[in-house]
């Protein structure tokens, strides 16, 4: 993974000094709150419901054991002993004090981490496939490009006060694990003959007006990446609406101006910007690729793995559900679930972070990932180490075998924490997970992604959940709307609204009815929920959700 050089270290030191000074000026009154707010946001500091919240960047979801251990220490020293991993591969601390934040940032800098541009009207954390560099189906590791974009976007002079936030995701595989089609810019590495380049997708986004992104450029040569992305952001910086924050994102700009007009403007800007990039960025890129070189694989027998797999059913179950194929046949990608039913989705205690850090150092070539599904991934585990890994995770409550299953729920913090929320999401996630655990149906149901958002901003990605739940405020009472058939992958789809919402006491049984309908209608256990939904459509599910409505129709 990327290691800071002198430039990066000096940059971060200077940046943190600037923020320390800004905090002091805010406290002294030299800066008004109106002036301070964008400055604290571009350093990741939000004001939430009960306290401040610091969002720390985990660039393209990659970190090492020293960094994970530092996050654990920061949580212990300046927070309440835990952190929350997010759908954009960041970590959030929910209880920092303003005057401590400069010290927290300095502690992060010691392990080459930061909170820069994790908020504000800036270019945010560039996210990537959490299986990058490990997946068997990968065309090319997207992370060198993500790191190049991170550096290019950091403190970019033009793009600190844009109409709104801007989100970029990169995928290196035909299987889209980075939700690229729901980003302002999605970059997909693809082959054209012998050459590898990018399909550039633009204007995806969830929230109030969810949209799947459109292809702006079918094949962009790698050497054009920075000027082309800069052209897009530059065009949008001038065009994006500043009069209405709900219509500011580039998805609306594309919708209002038309894709062709945006293409024309981008090409025009690109032609002006391209000569400015004289090749140094490509030299950097080549150096970055070396930083992301394949680890030195170990070469030992996997016999004990096969024996343990055959002997221990819980281990077998965990391997079957929580590991994924690795490009090296003797290795596996291991997902560490932060979704034990009853726990807050995506949360890890400091103790758990330390356990995972140590296990990653020993068994995963000292590398960890955070997935947008709010789980931790150990990308490079030799199969002979899986049993020891599992036994290391188990006592820490980190061995739940539910990756991709119904209890592997994505949920935003919701109104338990977030000032923007209209309803709570965490208790709904907990109840659903516990209910299906109690019913002992999780494995039978198979892959089913539930995503829950506590407000229309959709940080829980509910629009692209197989089952999405949106928590709203209906006449002063929490009300949960269900969407069906969403998809976050390369077959990206916005879910369809099922009908009127359910209150907190009926939402879980409503989800049950949807799931039982699936179990009734599927051709076999081999047909997943989303496949069944695509085959039969929404009507049977709606009928199950609203039995009185269909009775009313029949009675006519």
């Amino acid at each position, binding site marked *: 993974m990327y290691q800071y050089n002198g430039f990066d270290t000096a940059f971060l030191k200077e940046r943190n000094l600037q923020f320390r000074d800004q905090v002091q000026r*805010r*406290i*002294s*009154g030299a800066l*008004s*709150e109106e002036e301070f707010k964008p400055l604290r946001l571009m350093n990741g500091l939000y*004001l*939430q*419901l*009960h*306290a*401040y919240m610091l969002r720390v960047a985990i660039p393209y979801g990659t970190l090492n054991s020293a960094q994970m251990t530092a996050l654990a220490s920061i949580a212990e020293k300046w927070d*309440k002993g*835990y952190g929350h991993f997010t759908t954009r591969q960041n970590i959030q601390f*929910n*209880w*920092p*004090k*303003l*005057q401590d934040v400069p010290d927290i940032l300095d502690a992060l800098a010691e392990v080459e981490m930061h909170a820069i541009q994790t908020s504000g009207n800036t270019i945010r954390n560039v996210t990537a496939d959490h299986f990058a560099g490990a997946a068997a189906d990968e065309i090319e590791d997207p992370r060198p490009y993500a790191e190049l974009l991170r550096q290019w976007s950091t403190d970019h002079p033009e793009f600190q006060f844009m109409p709104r936030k801007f989100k970029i995701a990169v995928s290196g595989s035909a299987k889209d694990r980075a939700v690229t089609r729901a980003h302002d810019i999605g970059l997909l590495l693809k082959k054209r003959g012998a050459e590898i380049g990018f399909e550039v997708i633009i204007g995806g986004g969830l929230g109030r007006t969810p949209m799947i992104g459109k292809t702006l450029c079918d094949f962009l040569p790698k050497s054009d990446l920075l000027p082309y992305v800069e052209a897009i952001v530059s065009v949008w910086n001038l065009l994006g609406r500043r009069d209405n924050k709900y219509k500011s994102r580039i998805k609306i700009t594309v919708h209002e101006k038309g894709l062709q007009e945006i293409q024309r403007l981008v090409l025009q800007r690109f032609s002006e910007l391209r000569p400015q990039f004289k090749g140094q960025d490509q030299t950097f890129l080549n150096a970055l690729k070396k930083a992301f070189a394949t680890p030195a694989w170990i070469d030992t027998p996997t016999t004990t793995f096969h024996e343990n797999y055959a002997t221990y059913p819980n281990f077998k179950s965990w391997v079957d559900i929580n590991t994924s194929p690795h490009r090296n046949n003797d290795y596996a990608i291991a997902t560490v679930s932060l979704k034990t039913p009853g726990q*807050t989705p995506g949360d890890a205690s400091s103790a758990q972070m330390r356990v995972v850090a140590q296990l990653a150092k020993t068994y995963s070539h000292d590398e960890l990932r955070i997935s947008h599904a709010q789980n931790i991934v150990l990308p490079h585990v030799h199969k002979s180490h899986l049993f020891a890994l599992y036994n290391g995770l188990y006592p820490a409550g980190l061995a739940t075998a539910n990756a991709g299953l119904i209890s592997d729920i994505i949920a935003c913090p919701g*109104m*338990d*924490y977030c000032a923007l*929320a209209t309803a*709570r999401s*965490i*208790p709904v996630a*907990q109840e659903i997970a516990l209910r299906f655990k109690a019913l002992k149906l999780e494995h039978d149901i198979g892959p089913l992604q539930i995503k829950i958002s506590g407000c229309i901003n959709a940080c829980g990605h509910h629009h692209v959940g197989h089952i999405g739940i949106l928590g709203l*405020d209906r006449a*002063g*009472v*929490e009300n949960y709307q269900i969407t069906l058939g969403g998809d976050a992958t390369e077959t990206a789809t916005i879910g369809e609204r099922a009908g009127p919402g359910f209150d907190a006491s009926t939402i879980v049984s409503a989800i049950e009815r949807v799931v039982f309908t699936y179990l009734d209608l599927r051709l076999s256990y081999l047909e997943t929920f989303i496949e069944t939904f695509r085959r039969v459509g929404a009507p049977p599910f709606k009928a199950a959700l609203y039995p009185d409505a269909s009775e009313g129709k029949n009675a006519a």
Partner: protein
Amino acid sequence: MPSKSYSKVITANALLNGDVIYLNAKGGWTRQHSNAKIFHAKKDAQAALNTATAEASHVVGAYLADFSDEDAGPKPTHFREVFRTKGPGNYFHGKQAEAKNVSV
């Protein structure tokens, strides 16, 4: 003209530690919602809010919140404000876990 139907408090977050705070009857700030001053007149509430907003040195994000005037003291009428008096529901953190009757 004071009205029973208009019933609000001024609430904000403390600048340094982000705690939820309420304007009290003495024009200071309290962490205890039961000590919050209830406004029944829109004009008075707006004037107090303007003053509170100008108090940038230790208060941030002041706004008016619906609270009812009960015998036992002011009570939040919307679930969001109920949560702000307590803390999160998933961990015993925040106000619910801290000593009561602590003024800002």
